[in-house]
């Protein structure tokens, strides 16, 4: 078999698990014969110290005025009054919901179409889509978004094409609108939607479909009446996942909506702190609290919806191979759809960024742009110590936060899986961060560090602490699933032979759990180096990270340099991703 196909399939087997939203796990208070041990108490103490103070400070912030020097003033309800008495809140909430719903639908349609073509038809070239999807997952959102803003902007090639085709003399499509936001956010989630749904489509027990076909239903009717209803739970889960992610998203609304006067809840939080003078921490706190409550509601909804999903069990014990539909000549059409999607989702934005990175200034795509092309921007970024520092900071941030998350959750997840006394508290604490959209967590930690007796504000350490908390749920989710797979008879044998609990964990569980730990480590690393919303309020001049630098370069109007830096960083990330991918494959890592 082609090595690439095998590689893609391994990745894709892991991908659905990677993509799954960690759930708020229910309490497991029932303990077995285990006592509360120092390890449990220690973990509870560390997690409690990490998780609870930001929550407290966030809520406090929303109830106190800010003094001239930025410290807490007097108790007040004014921020909530302001919030609920103006139309802003309702407008923002509506925008947030519309944005989230639109993005989810957009990603679903493109992702499902791709997944169906790849999994269930004999379309040529289909195997390459996996690789492409995985590559595009690694691109920084800021870069991807600015690429699309340049492409779809008023002077971009897209509008040029539309104006030429329609004969209009003014701009046809305005990207700085809700529509623009939805399209870009939707495209960002498309690869994930594809990866998730393709595994669903593949795992169908196709005997249902075969029965329908044999009973005389055509391909279309079979799709409508059998395939579609069977896929419903997966589709629903995906919709909700993207919905919640888009609801919490900050980068795209800030870059697109910020320039077009479309505000959502997350951008209000940011604007209150970064765009007002003095920074309005109270208002940011009130917006954040509302946002947090909304996310809690959504997570509860998600949990209750997904708990009914077992009514549609599509994987059965019977041996099967999914039916591949032979499309005949139509397969060239589906093939060109795939090529088109590839071009739109990856070639166009990357091409745009590369073109802009070669230009001294950007005045639309035209021939003169190519005549002016030079590597000057690359020379500038190669020469910049602050950018080198940002790259180094980003790598430290990624490695450190991934390591801490794994260290804290590996043992905790095992204790929780074994229902050790008190371990349910570890479990609950580690899932608390799920209720924070990243920008809200950023506000919470900002307040924490501003008021901390230890000097942390603006340091790289502070970024690592915040990122560790943010990604705790992911580590917990991965390692809990991993620990459940390890049968306890191994541990019981060790215990019977007189091993202590610590030695059982270190000598039996840890080696068995290692593949899971490595996968979660890689996952947290990739997430934390890409994030903008968390570091944006926390990073100081000495702790800049790549994603924030890209965001600021765009906002400061250094578009060409941003493009050059983005190209270099993306290539670097793809190489790292490739190496990690190779290593994880060689070590046989996959999450089952």
């Amino acid at each position: 078999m082609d090595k690439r196909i095998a590689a893609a399939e391994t990745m894709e087997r892991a991908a659905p698990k990677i993509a799954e939203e960690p759930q708020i796990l229910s309490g497991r208070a029932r303990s077995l014969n285990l006592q509360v041990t120092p390890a449990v108490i220690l973990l509870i103490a560390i997690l409690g110290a990490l998780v609870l103070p930001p929550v407290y400070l966030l809520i406090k912030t929303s109830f106190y005025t800010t003094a001239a020097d930025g410290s807490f003033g007097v108790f007040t309800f004014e921020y909530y009054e302001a919030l609920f008495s103006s139309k802003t809140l309702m407008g923002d909430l509506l925008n947030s919901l519309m944005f989230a719903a639109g993005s989810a639908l957009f990603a679903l349609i493109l992702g499902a179409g791709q997944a169906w073509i790849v999994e269930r038809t004999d379309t040529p070239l289909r195997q390459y889509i996996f690789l492409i999807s995985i590559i595009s997952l690694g691109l920084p959102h800021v870069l991807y978004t600015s690429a699309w803003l340049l492409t779809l902007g008023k002077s971009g090639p897209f509008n040029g094409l539309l104006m030429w085709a329609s004969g209009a003399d003014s701009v046809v499509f305005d990207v700085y609108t809700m529509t623009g936001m939805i399209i870009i956010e939707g495209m960002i989630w498309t690869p994930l939607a594809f990866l998730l749904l393709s595994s669903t489509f593949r795992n169908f027990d196709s005997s249902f479909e075969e029965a329908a076909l044999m009973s005389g239903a055509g391909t279309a009717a079979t799709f409508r009446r059998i395939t579609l209803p069977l896929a419903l739970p997966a589709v629903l889960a995906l919709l909700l996942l993207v919905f919640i992610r888009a609801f919490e998203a900050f980068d795209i609304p800030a870059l697109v909506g910020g320039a077009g006067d479309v505000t959502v809840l997350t951008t209000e939080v940011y604007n209150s702190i970064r765009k007002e003078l003095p920074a309005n921490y109270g208002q940011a706190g009130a917006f954040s609290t509302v946002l947090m409550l909304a996310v809690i509601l959504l997570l509860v909804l998600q949990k209750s919806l997904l708990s009914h999903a077992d009514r549609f069990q599509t994987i059965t014990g019977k041996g099967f191979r999914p039916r591949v539909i032979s499309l005949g000549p139509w397969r060239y059409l589906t093939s060109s759809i795939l090529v088109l999607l590839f071009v739109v989702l990856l070639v166009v934005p990357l091409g745009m960024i590369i073109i802009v990175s070669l230009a001294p200034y950007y005045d639309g795509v035209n021939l003169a742009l190519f005549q002016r092309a030079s590597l000057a921007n690359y020379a500038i970024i190669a020469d910049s110590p602050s950018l080198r520092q940002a790259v180094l900071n980003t790598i430290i941030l990624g490695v450190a936060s991934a390591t801490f998350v794994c260290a804290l959750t590996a043992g905790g997840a095992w204790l929780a899986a074994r229902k050790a006394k008190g371990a349910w508290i570890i479990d609950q604490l580690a899932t608390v961060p799920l209720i924070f959209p990243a920008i809200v967590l950023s506000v919470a930690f900002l307040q924490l560090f501003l008021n901390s007796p230890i000097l942390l504000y603006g340091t790289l350490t502070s970024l690592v602490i915040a990122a560790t908390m943010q990604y705790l749920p992911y580590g917990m989710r991965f390692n809990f699933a991993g620990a459940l797979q390890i049968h306890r008879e191994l541990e019981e044998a060790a215990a019977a032979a007189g091993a202590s609990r610590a030695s059982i964990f270190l000598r039996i569980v840890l080696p068995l759990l290692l593949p899971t730990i490595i996968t979660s480590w890689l996952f947290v690393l990739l997430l934390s180096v890409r994030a903008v919303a968390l570091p944006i309020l926390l990073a100081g001049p000495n702790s800049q990270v790549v994603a924030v630098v890209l965001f600021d370069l765009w906002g400061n109007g250094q578009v060409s340099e941003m493009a050059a830096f983005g190209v270099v960083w993306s290539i670097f990330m793809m190489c790292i991703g490739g190496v990690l991918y190779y290593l994880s494959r060689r070590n046989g890592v996959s999450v089952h």
Partner: protein
Amino acid sequence: MLRKISLCAAAGLWLAFVGAAVAADIAQLAKMTGPDRERILHDGARKEGKVVLYSAMIENQALRPIKAAFTAKYPFLEVEFWRADTRDLINKTLAEVRSRSVVVDVVEGGGVSQSLIRAGVAQEFSLPGAAALPRAFVDPMWVATRVSYFGPAINTRMVSDDEAPKNYQDLLDPKWKGKIAWAANTETGGAMMFISFIRSWLGEQKGEEYLTQLAKQDIANLSGSPREVVNKLIAGEYPLALNIFLHHPLISAQKGAPVAPLLLDPVLGNASVMVLLKNAPRPHAALLLMDYLVSEEGQKVIRDADYFPANPSVAVEASVASIIPANSNKTLKFISEEDLFADRAKSIVLQKNLFQRR
């Protein structure tokens, strides 16, 4: 428990003591005059090893050349800078002071002084070199570094000279509806400053009438810096931009970009200033940098970056001289740091009510 509290108290006292000692040191240092000054600053800066500047000057245009020139003169000093708009500069600085982790030594930008003074974080200082500056450019708490002129700019591919607005009344022409952009969240350049300028030029009542008319143009509120607004203009996203730094389009036009500044009468001007932090971690190096920035040598670097030096003895670059109002028979409407701050509250309310749809 009691022991813990007393330990904490002792630590607190010690911190307060050290803090006071530092404050006394920097106050003396900042006002020092006499022949020893240069040597003391040198020796101190050599130990400090670097200096951190937060500035609103555009990185690739000005900050990098300044850093290069300054480190060439003082090879033992490393210069770190962070570029942001004024609001960010102030908020970041205040956050650092509040969390007692001050990174910055000197803050530079238009409109930075008053907020920092009111928050009690600015240090009084005097620079021997400031004597060469006009009196209006020197204050016990700040010294001007450069002058900026503000006005509209056009994309020359989209707007011909004939079509371009000739006066402020022309900006109300319905043909510009939906075609104008400005920076919505900045202190200097952008919406708030423009509103303050109109109020102070036309008076409150006429000013508000004018602004109400202008609001009908549906001006695009961009979230980036005024420099980014000029980039959008160059990219052809908008044909007309309001209240940008007039030298920015000229700098781009020199590279061939299709953009030009417009001088309407009167031309708005202000001076960007620098402020020394009370808790500056590297006061010696900070003062050396400030000395350098107002010196003829430093002012020439600013001039060579096509900015307007605050020191009148340094002649402006010929390529941007046309922007100086007197050179093209225009009146200068100068807004001081104090006025900018005094007018901001009301201008922000007007901006919210008139120009922010929703």
